[in-house]
């Protein structure tokens, strides 16, 4: 179906919406800077071990960019919830569900790439901030021994993981829009179902049975074969996109 007003195809309308969302949602960049500043702060207070006596103190700090990545994921989750909200789609005159879906997902992908780029530069940034903040410290960085391939894998993994979190948050947001009060009830029911399921699983299968976030993280993170990891992550993102499209396809926007 072509737009009546602009006589444009759906794809070009979606592209226009994508550019418009990227520009008008630029408060997101301010949020990104604020959250990543918080992330750098948390990175420096991550963990510390020390030895010494009254004459001498040697403390070893492990500065890792994982808190920074968690804050970046929080950022893309906020953006995805925002995009899935109803208000943003009312703004566009020629919007339909397909253009909204396409442009939202495209903007989220751009945001994921931005997170990947910032994570690639997080190592030198941490080193720089460490040199400024910690006075007489000697910084031994593992980033010195990283090659181009390491940076590439850092970029790809952070981009795909943030894309996965963004897609999951967008899916939850679409469910919230679609099944408004039923979504709250069913999420409480899902949590109860998980608790009852884990209790029954422990009762009948054994104490090794475990449902948890750690298991989900292990499914993606503890995979050393590259192709299998790519299949897992791209399959998950594709499945989430399919579910989002099923949820958004015949959604009544303006009630």
């Amino acid at each position, binding site marked *: 179906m072509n737009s009546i007003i602009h006589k444009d195809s759906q794809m070009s309308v979606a592209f226009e919406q994508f550019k418009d969302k990227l520009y008008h949602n630029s408060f997101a960049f301010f949020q990104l800077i604020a959250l990543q500043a918080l992330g750098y702060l948390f990175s420096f207070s991550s963990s510390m071990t020390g030895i010494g006596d009254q004459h001498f103190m040697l403390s070893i700090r492990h500065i890792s960019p994982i808190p920074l990545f968690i804050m970046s994921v929080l950022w893309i989750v*906020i953006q995805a919830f925002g995009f899935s909200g109803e208000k943003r789609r009312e703004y566009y005159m020629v919007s339909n569900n397909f253009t909204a879906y396409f442009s939202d997902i495209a903007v989220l992908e751009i945001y994921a790439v931005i997170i990947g780029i910032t994570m690639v530069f997080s190592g030198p940034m941490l080193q720089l901030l460490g040199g400024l903040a910690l006075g007489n410290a000697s910084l031994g960085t593992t980033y010195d021994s990283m090659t181009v391939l390491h940076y590439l894998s850092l970029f790809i993994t952070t981009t795909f993981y943030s894309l996965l979190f963004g897609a999951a948050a967008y899916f939850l947001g679409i469910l919230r829009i679609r099944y408004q009060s039923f979504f709250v009830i069913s999420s409480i029911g899902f949590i109860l179902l998980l608790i009852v399921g884990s209790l029954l699983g422990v009762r009948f299968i054994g104490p090794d049975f475990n449902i948890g976030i750690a298991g989900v993280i292990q499914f993606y993170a503890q995979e050393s074969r590259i192709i299998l990891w790519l299949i897992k992550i791209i399959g998950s993102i594709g499945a989430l996109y399919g579910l989002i499209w099923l949820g958004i396809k015949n959604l009544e926007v303006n009630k």
Partner: protein
Amino acid sequence: MYAILPFAFILLLVLIVFLGRFFGKKISTKLSLQLMGVYGVILLLSPFLAAFATDPVNEDDGITETPDFYYQDILEDYENYNLQDLKNDDYLSILKETVFGIPTENFSEEDPFVISTSGLNVDGWYDREYGYTMIVERSDEVEAVVITQFQQRAFIQGYEVTQGFEP
């Protein structure tokens, strides 16, 4: 510890959305894009700044750092060292000298006087396997057994950190 992470995540999410409702209108599109540009430039320049702006580590402060595994060379070549050599060695520092008085009973070949790390009462610890090696000198007129513990001196970036490590 990890159990608290989802709650902290949700709390931060609510906080950020709440702040965005109030401050989202006040920060203009142009200002946000300019800030993002500044942040991007800083990020792109950070490798060069980290390489050139931070102080390089001074390697030569007149302090010769102890070679790695120096003590292993001594242990393999212990026959050519005596106690005085070890005490004069710059790379080693004396950690502790423990004196054991010899019991007054006579010893025979059937009932020898055994010096062993296990079963010794050092610092109130019995039957403890020690990781260090003792080199014992003996002379004809033995009045007491002195166990001298040496420690390899350790430096980190020119600072001596030997006392900080308890073996």
